[in-house]
């Protein structure tokens, strides 16, 4: 049995107060990804059953102020458009049921402009970095915008599968080593486009299950330390392929709960470290996916409240093949 309790109220306070921490250097150093920060905070709150604490109108106004004429979103006003932040923007607007505030065609054409038809990959922005993280962002965005028909899906899938390794995992690009974050992106994207049948679930599941360490936490690659965020990437991937029971769920719960900050609230990468909103979301999403703490269910493919993706008709149950 766990001797830790889930500190719901403290976590809610922790997220509410994020925007008041302007006397901390970290607040300013992380400005370039504030839009994602809002997504992490809002999703965590929604999973804890407090959907409206951030102030809907102010948040929508902020999101809109991050959009560029080309349709893409930057991480903060005046910061350049990038797929990473475009996904965060769409996720926030959907959680607030506020898609009518933006021109979705512009967003779709921004995403299309980053598609590389020679390889089926996506660039993160006009400077050309290629990574399966961006394949995920593009596919997730387009799916959330009900616009998957605007790209050549078979080519996109071909690229993702070219990033698969003999251990069953996926890397950032063809030839790159398997990494749990990348596995989530590739498996998530394949699940969204209903192409999971092209992967060997037992092989991948074995690699993923081996990520669990003695203390219950999961690491991102062999021989690395456990981390709450990797726990989410691994757990969500296992769920998507219907292999969640291949790890010890109660021990993972203990690990996540032990990573809470009992004084300020918030969850850190592991016990004793400084908490942040990123690990707070992925810790809470992990607990939700495990079915603990009476949280709102989360959709492992999108890391959004399940209620929302069901409403949008996007949720799909894992097959067990």
């Amino acid at each position, binding site marked *: 049995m766990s001797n830790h309790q889930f500190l719901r109220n403290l976590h809610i306070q922790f997220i509410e107060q994020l925007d008041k921490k*302007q*006397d*901390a*250097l*970290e607040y*300013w*150093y*992380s*400005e*370039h*990804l504030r839009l994602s920060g809002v997504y992490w905070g809002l999703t965590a709150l929604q999973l804890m059953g407090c959907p409206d604490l951030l102030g809907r109108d102010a948040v929508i106004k902020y999101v809109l102020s991050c959009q560029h004429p080309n349709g893409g979103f*930057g*991480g903060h006003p*005046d*910061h*350049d458009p*990038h797929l990473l932040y475009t996904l965060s923007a769409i996720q926030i607007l959907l959680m607030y049921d506020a898609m009518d505030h933006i021109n979705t065609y512009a967003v779709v054409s921004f995403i299309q402009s980053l598609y590389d038809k020679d390889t089926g990959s996506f660039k993160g*922005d006009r*400077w050309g*970095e290629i990574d399966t993280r961006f394949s995920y962002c593009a596919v997730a965005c387009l799916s959330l915008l009900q616009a998957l028909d605007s790209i050549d899906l078979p080519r996109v899938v071909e690229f993702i599968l070219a990033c698969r*390794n*003999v*251990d069953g995992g996926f890397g*950032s*690009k063809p*030839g*790159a*080593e*398997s*990494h749990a974050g990348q596995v989530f992106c590739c498996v998530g994207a394949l699940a969204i486009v209903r192409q999971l049948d092209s992967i060997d679930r*037992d092989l991948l*599941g*074995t690699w993923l*299950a*081996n990520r*669990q360490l*003695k203390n*219950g936490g999961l690491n991102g*690659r*062999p*021989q*690395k330390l456990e*981390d709450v*965020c990797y726990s989410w990437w691994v757990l969500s991937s296992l769920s998507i392929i219907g*292999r969640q*029971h*291949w*790890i*010890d769920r109660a*021990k993972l719960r203990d690990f996540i709960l032990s990573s809470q*900050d009992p004084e300020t609230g918030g969850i*850190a*990468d592991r016990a*004793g*470290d*400084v908490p*942040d909103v*990123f*690990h707070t979301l992925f810790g809470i999403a992990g607990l939700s996916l495990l079915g603990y703490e009476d949280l709102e269910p989360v959709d492992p493919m999108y890391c959004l409240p399940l209620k929302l993706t069901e409403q949008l008709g996007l949720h799909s149950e894992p097959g067990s093949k």
Partner: protein
Amino acid sequence: MSHGVRRVKTTAEVQLLKKQKEAKLIDEYRQLTSAVFQKRKDLCYDDESFQLTTRLLRNNPELYTVWNYRREILLSRFDSCSEAEVTEACQAELDFFMEVIRFNPKCYWIWNHRLWALSTTPSPNWDMELRLVGKMLELDSRNFHGWDYRRYVIDKICSVQPENILAINTREFDYTTQKIMENFSNFSAWHNRLKLLEMILPGKTLEERRALIANEFELVQSALFTEPQDECGWLHWRWLIEQEISLTEAISEQLATVVRETDTIAELLELAPDGKLVLRNIILLYRIKHGIEPLNAVDRAKVGQYVQRLAELDPLRVGLDEKWW
């Protein structure tokens, strides 16, 4: 997103002092940031703007927009520059990379900037890049940015010397041997070795392939006997078995491979009777054997014992083990 930053308990006094210090830093940082973003809004591409980006990126290399601005400034100049001047400016960017990467080896934007400088400079020196990434991997032999970059550089070298591809890949293969001998647990090196083998093997004769695979078994065996609890070696070993089996259609030869490995791993199991991965992989061998020819009663009994022992040893993955047999 912070990783590995420990919480420290401090007194109110220390806290106050820290806050005061921080307030000053914040002030400077905000002034610098707003100066840079204002310059960019004003489409200012002069030296002063460029130097401001240097200062700011030293301070916070995660500011991807500022890297973009820095490149915009450089590009705005290159139209009227000689080749030598462009080369020099790009070299300066490569030097700036070295300065900032040291403190932020995992920052994607810094790596992107290096790739940009190399794709912009008229004649990139890929051999020098290879030496450089070799040095970086000495500092952190698991940095996946470093390994990705190494593969990128090798790709470039291969594309300018297509006649030497085999030699280049062989040299890279030897590099992974060296890295693995330094540390059997270097998953990144094992991974790259396997990728290289996938490229090297198809060009070999059957006899050469057999020899190469035998050689690999020898290496992986020393890894397994040294670190039986390490996934890296096991993944490689499993792949080798598949490769060796695929070399022949004769069932007797395929079985010979499995039996030989079963004997070896049984020996290892005696040395490491609590080795979870040893158990899991010896069970795997029986599964492979079963795929070639149905197991007899003696084998079945053995597998049953292994599965039971594994469930006792590794309760974490008990769901996984049910699936195994």
